[in-house]
């Protein structure tokens, strides 16, 4: 009998596998974690989720025990990504530590704006990428982590990790927190029906928990999640957001379909689920390709236009009047 069962694969495409196997609480004082006995493949979204559960157990003061077959071939990967320590275990094996450069960003915690600023500076050397290629990665990390710092009220901060597939030029990202969740955050300023409604509002351009005004205030525009979702969509990848008892998952846009940015997330090519195990926090996972960064400026132009149209219904372009020198 386990309180948390970790299946043999946790990815964006099959994210439901970990949900079907678990209830995510209420957690007993003695939490037992059981790993799939043969192999555990895990996208950063799974690593980030389990790190957030570790935060919740720490806050609760739960005692941990676990079942793990030490012959599982993916243990070195999971350990190198910092999973066991993030959950509250000691590392199961002794590893020869290789350089992180060019392959992955292990789980780490970011609690403040200054920590985020320092983290962003490390991305180029960590991923062995150029400043031009990393613009979009930095943009995504900054917007998502800053959301946690500003809105989640998560004492443990944000859990952040990523892997980079150099052949596919694809970076996979997982970010989580064990804070108050999207419902409580958005409900401060907007009427909500349930957790899925909160997720939809969070993805809607111009909606922020900081103010009831559509378009935001002087400090928040309610654009960060919309931009991030569009970036994943533009590179024809998945994007998942899970909070409370619901998730929204953007499906991959097929190669023969045009990329259309919807200000109404219910019009996206997506799947949504409700009545899921209650996750006290927020989890985001996505993949992005970084092979075509010459298009980043055009992408920002297009997303910006979609944001403006969604918030103001206006297409007016003042660019020529801006004093650029």
């Amino acid at each position, binding site marked *: 009998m386990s309180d948390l069962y970790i299946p043999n694969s946790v990815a964006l495409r099959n994210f439901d596998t970990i949900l079907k196997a678990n209830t995510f609480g209420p957690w007993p004082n003695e939490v037992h974690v059981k790993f799939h006995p043969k192999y555990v493949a895990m996208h950063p979204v799974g690593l980030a989720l389990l790190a957030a559960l570790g935060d919740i157990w720490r806050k609760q003061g739960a005692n941990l025990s676990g079942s793990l077959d030490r012959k599982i071939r993916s243990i070195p990967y999971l350990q190198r990504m910092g999973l066991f320590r993030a959950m509250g275990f000691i590392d199961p094996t002794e590893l020869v530590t290789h350089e992180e450069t060019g392959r992955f960003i292990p789980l780490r915690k970011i609690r403040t*704006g*200054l920590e*985020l*600023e320092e983290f*962003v*500076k490390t991305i180029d050397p960590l991923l062995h990428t150029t*400043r*031009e290629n990393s*613009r979009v990665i*930095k*943009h995504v990390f*900054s*917007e998502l982590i*800053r959301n946690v710092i500003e809105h989640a009220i998560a004492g443990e901060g944000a859990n952040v990790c990523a892997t980079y597939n150099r052949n596919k030029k694809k970076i996979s990202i997982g970010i989580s927190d064990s804070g108050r969740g999207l419902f409580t955050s958005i409900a401060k300023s907007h009427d909500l029906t349930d957790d899925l409604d909160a997720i939809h509002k969070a993805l809607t351009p111009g909606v922020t928990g900081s103010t009831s005004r559509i*378009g*935001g205030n*002087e*400090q*928040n*525009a309610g*654009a*960060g999640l919309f*931009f991030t979702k569009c970036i994943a969509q533009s590179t024809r990848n998945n994007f998942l957001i899970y909070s409370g008892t619901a998730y929204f998952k953007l499906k991959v846009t097929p190669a023969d379909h045009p990329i259309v940015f919807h200000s109404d997330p219910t019009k996206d090519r997506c799947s949504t689920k409700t009545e899921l195990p209650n996750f006290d926090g927020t989890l985001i996972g996505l993949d992005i390709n970084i092979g075509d960064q010459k298009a*980043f*400026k055009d992408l*920002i*132009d297009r*997303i*910006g*236009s979609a*944001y*403006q149209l969604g*918030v*103001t219904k*206006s297409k*007016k*372009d*003042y*660019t020529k*009047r*801006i*004093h*650029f*020198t």
Partner: protein
Amino acid sequence: MNPLTIRISDLTGNFAENKDKAKDLREQKVMPTIAKGGHVILDFADVDSTTQSFIHALISKVFQDKREKAFTLIEFKNCSGPVKSLVSTVVNYSLA
């Protein structure tokens, strides 16, 4: 009154994302200078890119308050393509 030039990279490095610094600039430098009838030059030399949130925190309130008059109050210098794009995005929705 001489324009106030703010070199963004001195505060942010080559990726400008810290909204707290953008807010401080807006509240302590940009808005007070404009309130005194001055002109602000935001110099993005050596800033490779930025985020929508940073630019929003830096200039959105100016354009919301001053409307189109803000075009004569703020100059954007040495912007890379992505920075230009994000400035245009924020200006467009702030004035809409």
